[in-house]
C-alpha cells in the first residue's frame, strides 16, 4: 500500500512518517491554500494551488519541494503567537526527514535517520580509528612517516589494491543505496509522466538553486532580512563537491586508461579541479555550518540539527584534509594526512545514503515533478478554455 492510500490512523505505522507531522503539514497547507499571500516566494505555493485537499503523497512532495528559505514564515500573518500558529518551514523540514527515513534502502537501516548526528559522528570516528590502526599495523613506518615523492608515493602508504577496493566498494554501495531510495521516493511521490522539458527545467532549478534566490533579492537566511548568503555558500559547496568528484573521476581515468600514476603536478586537471573543489567545499560547508549557529531557530526543525550538521562537518573535514594533503604531499606529513583524508572520505561515502545528502536527490525529483505538474495543469487549462 502506498502512503497516498493509507488511512491517516495507519500512517504512524509506516516506517518513518509520523501521523502528527503529516497532520500538521496538512493543517498548515489548508490554511496556506485559503490565504495564498506567499505565492510569489517559491514553487511550493503554485504547487499547493493545484490542490483543494492534500494526500500524504502530495504533502511529502511539497515538503521536498520546500528549500527552507523561511520567507513564508516571516511574512506569515498566522505565525505564532497567532492562534493558528503556522510554521511551514519547520513542519516541512520535519516531514522531509521522515520521508528520507521512510524511503531509505534497505529498510532495515532506515533507523539511522533517527539520531543521524550521532550515527554520522560515530561512523566517522570509528572508520577513522580503523583506518589509522590498520595503517599503523600494516604499513611500513618508513612509508607512513617518511618523505615520499614521485609517482606511486601514495600507494607506498596505502597499497593500490586496498585503495581501489575500499573506494569502489564504499562508493558503489552508496550509489546503489541512493538510487534505490530515490526509486522508492519517486514511486510514491513522483510524477506519473515526465517529459524532457520538465527534466531540463528541474535540473536548471536544482543547479542554480533558483528557489534560494527569492526571485533575485534573496531569502531570510538567518532572520527577517533578505540575503543571498545561503544560496552562494550552498553553491560553493555543491559545485565544490561536483568538482572534487570530477577530479577523482579524471584521476581514475588517468590511472586506469593512461597508466599515469598519482600524485599529479600542480597544473594537472585532477589537481586543479580538486583544489577548486576543495576550496569551494571548505568555504561552502564551513559557511553553512556557521550560519546554522547564527540563524533564528524558530522556523527550523531542531530535530534535524544533528543530521544537517553531520553532513556539513563531514564535507568540511574531507575538504580541509584533502587540501592539506595537496599542500603537504612532499613532506613527511603526507603519509598521515593521506590516511586521515581517506578515513574521512570513507566515512562520507558510507553515510551518504543515510544522511542529509539524500535531500539533493529528493529535491531534484520534487522539482522535476513540479514542472511536470505545472505543465499538465496549464495544458488542462488550455484545453478547457
Amino acid at each position, binding site marked *: 500500500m502506498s502512503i497516498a492510500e493509507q488511512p491517516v490512523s495507519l500512517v504512524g505505522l509506516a516506517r518513518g512518517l509520523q501521523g502528527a507531522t503529516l497532520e500538521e503539514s496538512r493543517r498548515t497547507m489548508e490554511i496556506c491554500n485559503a490565504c495564498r*499571500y506567499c505565492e510569489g516566494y517559491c514553487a511550493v505555493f503554485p504547487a499547493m494551488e493545484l490542490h483543494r485537499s492534500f494526500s500524504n503523497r502530495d504533502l511529502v512532495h511539497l515538503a521536498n519541494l520546500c528549500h527552507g528559505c523561511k520567507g513564508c514564515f*516571516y511574512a506569515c*500573518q498566522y505565525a505564532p503567537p497567532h492562534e493558528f500558529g503556522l510554521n511551514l518551514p519547520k513542519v516541512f523540514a520535519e516531514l522531509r526527514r521522515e520521508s528520507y527515513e521512510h524511503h531509505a534502502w534497505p529498510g532495515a537501516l532506515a533507523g539511522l535517520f533517527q539520531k543521524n548526528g550521532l550515527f554520522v559522528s560515530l561512523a566517522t570516528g570509528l572508520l577513522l580509528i580503523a583506518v589509522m590502526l590498520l595503517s599503523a599495523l600494516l604499513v611500513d613506518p618508513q612509508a607512513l612517516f617518511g618523505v615520499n615523492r614521485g609517482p606511486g608515493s601514495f600507494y607506498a602508504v596505502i597499497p593500490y589494491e586496498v585503495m581501489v577496493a575500499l573506494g569502489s566498494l564504499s562508493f558503489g554501495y552508496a550509489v546503489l543505496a541512493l538510487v534505490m531510495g530515490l526509486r522508492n521516493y519517486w514511486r510514491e511521490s513522483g510524477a506519473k509522466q515526465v517529459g524532457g522539458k520538465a527534466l531540463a527545467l528541474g535540473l536548471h532549478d536544482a543547479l542554480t538553486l533558483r528557489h534560494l534566490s*527569492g526571485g533575485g533579492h534573496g531569502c531570510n537566511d538567518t532572520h527577517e532580512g533578505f540575503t543571498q548568503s545561503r544560496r552562494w555558500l550552498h553553491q560553493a559547496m555543491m559545485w565544490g563537491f561536483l568538482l572534487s568528484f570530477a577530479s577523482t573521476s579524471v584521476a581514475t581515468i588517468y590511472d586506469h586508461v593512461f597508466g599515469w600514476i598519482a600524485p599529479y603536478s600542480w597544473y594537472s586537471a585532477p589537481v586543479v579541479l580538486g583544489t577548486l573543489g576543495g576550496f569551494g567545499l571548505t568555504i561552502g560547508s564551513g559557511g553553512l555550518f556557521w550560519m546554522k549557529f547564527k540563524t533564528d531557530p524558530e522556523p527550523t526543525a531542531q530535530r534535524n540539527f544533528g543530521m544537517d550538521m553531520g553532513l556539513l562537518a563531514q564535507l568540511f573535514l574531507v575538504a580541509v584534509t584533502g587540501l592539506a594533503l595537496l599542500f603537504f604531499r612532499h613532506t613527511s606529513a603526507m603519509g598521515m594526512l593521506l590516511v586521515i583524508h581517506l578515513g574521512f572520505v570513507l566515512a562520507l561515502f558510507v553515510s551518504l545514503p543515510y544522511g542529509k545528502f539524500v535531500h539533493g536527490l529528493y529535491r531534484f525529483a520534487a522539482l522535476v515533478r513540479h514542472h511536470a505538474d505545472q505543465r499538465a495543469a496549464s495544458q488542462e487549462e488550455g484545453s478547457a478554455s
Partner: protein
Amino acid sequence: MLRDKHYDLLVIGGGNAALCAALTAREQGASVLVCEHAPRALRGGNSRHTRNLRCSHDAPTDVLTENYSEEEYFEDLLRVTGGVTNEKLARMTIHESKFVTPWMYERGVRFQPSLGGTLSLSRTNAFFLGGGKALVNAYFAEAEKKGVEVVYDTEVVSLDIEEGFFKGAEVRYHGFPDYVRAKALVVASGGFQGNIEWLTEAWGPSAANFIIRGTPFNKGLMLRDLLAKGAEPNGDPTQCHAVAIDARAPKFDGGIVTRLDCVPFSIVVNNKAERFYDEGEDVWPKRYAIWGRLVAQQPDQIAYAIIDTKCLKLFMPSVFPPIEGRTIEELAGKLELDPAKLSKTVKGFNAAVQPGSFDPSGLDGSRTEGLEPAKTNWARKLDEPPYYAYPLRPGVTFTYLGVTVDEKARIQMADGKPSANMLAAGEIMAGNILGQGYLAGLGMTIGTVFGRIAGQEAARYVNR
C-alpha cells in the same frame, strides 16, 4: 524611561502609514520615536493583513499590467463612495500613487511580478511579495537601520493638547506610566474596530457577535482623545465595513483565510431556516461587502450558506471545512436548525428554480420564479447530496469615523484651523477620501501617500 528624552517627532502606531511617516521624517533629519501598542510579534496593525496597494500608472510597469489613468481611478472611487469623498484630497492621493512603488522598493518592500492578467487586480494593484507583514517587516528593518527609535508594548493613553497644539503624550511603556515629549505628532493608530464597546454604541448589543478581521490593538483611543480635544470629526460614526465571514473564525486577526466566496452559489438562511436576501444579485466581489450588514441584521447575527455537492469546487477553499449532511434534515440537525423548516425552505427554493444555463463566470440569469426573496442568478436546485453548509457572521474590516485633515495631513480643529504640529495618516483619516464603500488596495495607498506627507510636514515643522 522615555520621559528623560526629547524627540522631534512622536509617531503613534506601527502600521504602514506610521512607518512611512517615521521613515520620511527621519530621512529629513528629525529624531523620531514610534510607539507601537502591540508586542513586536504582532506589530503592524491592520497592514499586516493587507496584500496590495492601488496605483495609477500610464504604462505597464514591472509590477502592474496595462495602464490605469488617474481619471479611471477617480471614477472607481466615486462609484464605490457614491461621491462621499474630498475630491481635492482624493485626486492628490491618486496622483501621488503613481510614484510610491519605487519609493517603497528603495526601502526594502518587494513586489510580486504582475500576475499576467489572471487576476483582475493585476492591472490596478501592486502586490507585496509575501503580503503586508513582509512589507511591515521591511519598513521596521529600514527604520531601525536609519535610527528611528521604536518601542513596542507601548500604548499612548492621552495627548496633551493646548489649543490645537501638541505638547506631549502620556503612555504606558511596557505597562508602566511614562511620558513622551516631542515637537510634532503623527497619529497613525487606525480606526476603532478592535473596540467592541465602541462598536456596541453604534450597533447595539448585536456588535458582541461581530468578528474583527484585523488587529485587536485598534481600540480607537487616540481617535476618541483627539475628537474630545477639539479635532474635527470626519465620516459616519455608525458605519463600518463588514463582510460575511466564516463564523468559526477567531474573534480577532483571522485575516484573509476566513473569507467565504460561496454565497452566490448557495442559498443563505438565518437561524429560523429562512432565506432573507437575493444571493445571486451580482458577481461576488461587488456584493461581497453587503453581506456583513445583512447577516448583522439577522437574529443572533448568524446565517448559513448551504450548497450541494456540485457547487463545492466553484469557489476558493476556505480555511474551515464545510459542515456536511447526507440529507437536508441531517445537515439541519448539525446546524441546530429546525429540520422540517429547512427542508421546507429548500423544497420551496427547488420548486421555484427555472431552467437555465448555469455559468459561474458571470451573471447567468438562472433564476427563481415566484419566490420571495428571489434568487436572480446562479439558481440551481439543491439536489446532489451530500449537502454542505458554512456558518456566516459579520466580519468587521474597518470603521469610517476619523479626523478631518488638509492636503498637508494637518489635523483640522473644530474651530476650522489646521493644527500646527499634529498630523494624521492612515485609517484614522482615510474616511476623508473613502467616505463609504470599499476599493481594494486604496487603504494602503492612502496610508502610504499620507504617511509620507505627514512625515515631510513634521520634518518641515521641526526643521523650520
